């Protein structure tokens, strides 16, 4: 570990005495193609559902954090105005695919700092009216000017994993099969139908070796969570508190030189901070929602999190160990590949799934006996940096 990493760890390790944080209400909209719906409309539905789930007077909310990428100025305030919460401090955050999780991070810090007791975090994104196919990278970035697309980055990383560990295209495709099967059990998911390995393999190539069914779709949706301090949980008699044991946020370092693209230092570093804060290790995690924007991405995430040894996750999936009912279920909600990927909403929806699983409210996709779940998001790519933002939340029953 470098000096810088040790510094980060020391800075971000659990601080004794800071209030414990709980998730007391969760809500989300249907994810999918909903071009006739506005961010205000989707955001209102998700926030209202979270408030109803928390069963609290909306006026108890002291502050709100709203994650989004493309929804324009003051989207958080526009949503809050729809639910009678105008007037409180609202912070809009953009952190690419980690925007929603960064909103949760903001609320978590506000409670940990003792500044707030009840905070709303939401994420909202309307994409189908804006993009068709791959999202456009930032103009002026050297790699974007060279013809980089997000699928091509994950395709090139997949090829390194294949070269280094003997991973096969079929093993990667099985990640999509698993996640779309899980999505078929999730009423909020974009994809309603399970697919076969043959269907994934026969889908149109996007960036070889990745095919269409190995890429997350363009989606619209919103999700929201109500966070409370331990004090507020008692004072307001919250019905179903789930401990938010840690939220960690890091950004990618600028790495000149010839690094191993079959591994993710950013995910690894962020995980060390999250595990230290939560006082748990990878062996304690019973299931995880990870940022499977592409089939190969799930491989890099799970290995970067230290949940499965490097190079072994594709065979782990092939053996069924990552299925609901397997040793370590990954993306029981269907993940981005099955549930959909409305950028700003994604990180919040992952926490919604963790809470439902830990409460035992996940219906046909319920995981038995899980005591701790992990949500991982990472997003963004610019020349030189490995990734823009990575967030990890750990929740315990």
């Amino acid at each position, binding site marked *: 570990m470098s000096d810088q990493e040790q510094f980060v760890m020391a800075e971000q390790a659990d601080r004794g005495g800071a209030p414990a944080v709980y998730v007391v209400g969760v809500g989300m909209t249907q994810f999918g193609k909903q071009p006739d719906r506005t961010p205000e409309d989707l955001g209102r539905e998700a926030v209202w559902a979270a408030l109803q789930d928390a069963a609290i007077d909306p006026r108890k909310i002291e502050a709100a954090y709203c994650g989004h990428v493309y929804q324009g100025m003051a989207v958080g305030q526009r949503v809050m105005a729809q639910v009678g919460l105008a007037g409180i401090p609202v912070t809009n955050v953009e952190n690419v695919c980690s925007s929603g999780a960064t909103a949760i991070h903001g609320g978590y810090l506000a409670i940990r700092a003792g500044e707030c007791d009840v905070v709303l975090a939401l994420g909202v994104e309307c994409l189908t009216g804006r993009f068709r196919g791959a999202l456009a990278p930032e103009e002026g970035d050297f790699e974007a000017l*060279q013809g980089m697309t997000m699928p091509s980055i994950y395709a090139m990383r997949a*090829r390194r994993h294949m070269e280094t560990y003997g991973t096969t295209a079929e093993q990667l495709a099985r990640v999509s099969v698993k996640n779309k099967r899980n999505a078929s059990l999730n009423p909020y998911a974009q994809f309603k139908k399970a697919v076969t390995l043959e269907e994934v393999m026969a889908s149109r190539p996007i960036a070889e070796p990745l095919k269409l069914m190995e890429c997350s779709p363009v989606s619209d949706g919103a999700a929201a969570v109500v966070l409370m301090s331990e004090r507020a949980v008692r004072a307001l008699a919250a019905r179903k508190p789930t401990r938010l044991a840690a939220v960690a946020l890091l950004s990618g370092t600028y790495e000149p030189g010839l*690094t191993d693209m079959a591994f993710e230092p950013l995910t690894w570093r962020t995980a060390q901070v999250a595990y230290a804060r939560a006082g748990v290790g990878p062996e304690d995690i019973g299931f995880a929602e990870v940022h499977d924007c592409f089939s190969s991405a799930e491989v890099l995430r799970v290995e970067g999190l230290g949940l499965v040894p490097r190079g072994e996750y594709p065979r782990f999936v092939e053996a069924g160990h990552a299925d609901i009912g397997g040793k370590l279920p990954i993306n029981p909600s269907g993940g981005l590949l099955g549930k959909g990927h409305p950028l700003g909403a994604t990180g919040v929806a992952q926490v919604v799934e963790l809470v439902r699983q830990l409460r035992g409210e996940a219906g046909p996709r319920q995981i038995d006996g899980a005591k701790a779940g992990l949500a991982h998001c990472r997003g963004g790519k610019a020349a030189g940096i490995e990734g823009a933002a990575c967030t990890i939340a750990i929740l315990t029953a």
Partner: protein
Amino acid sequence: MVVNAESSTWVPLLPGLLRQEDDGSVTLLGSRCEGCGTTYFPAMKICVRCLSPERMLSAPLSRRGTVYTFSVVRQSLPEFPTPYVLAYVDLPEGVRVLSQLADVSPEAAHIGMEVELVGAITRKGDADQPEVLGFRFRCVTGKGS
């Protein structure tokens, strides 16, 4: 593609990214830290290893490199006609450069392929704007593609 050496109306893909030699070939311009020897491309003003801005020198990069990984891109933005082979190319200076491969068929591309730099017009000029000079890598002659 050999760039017309007579033309003086081109601009680089990004400022300072490359220079054109007298024979029309191009050279990529990175930067190198005198303190620790780290080379950067595109060039950086401050060495992120040493955090020292004082000793960064302009560094022309080698023309030959090796494909570290690649993808055949079948769907892209409208300004990038598909299919094309996109690759990370490792240069002897310890720099990894993202580039399209020129004149390499999807079937021929492979990890470890030896490639060399070639200039490429990435946008044609017109009355309003100069042409844009970028680059590609192509298979080293005689190595098959």
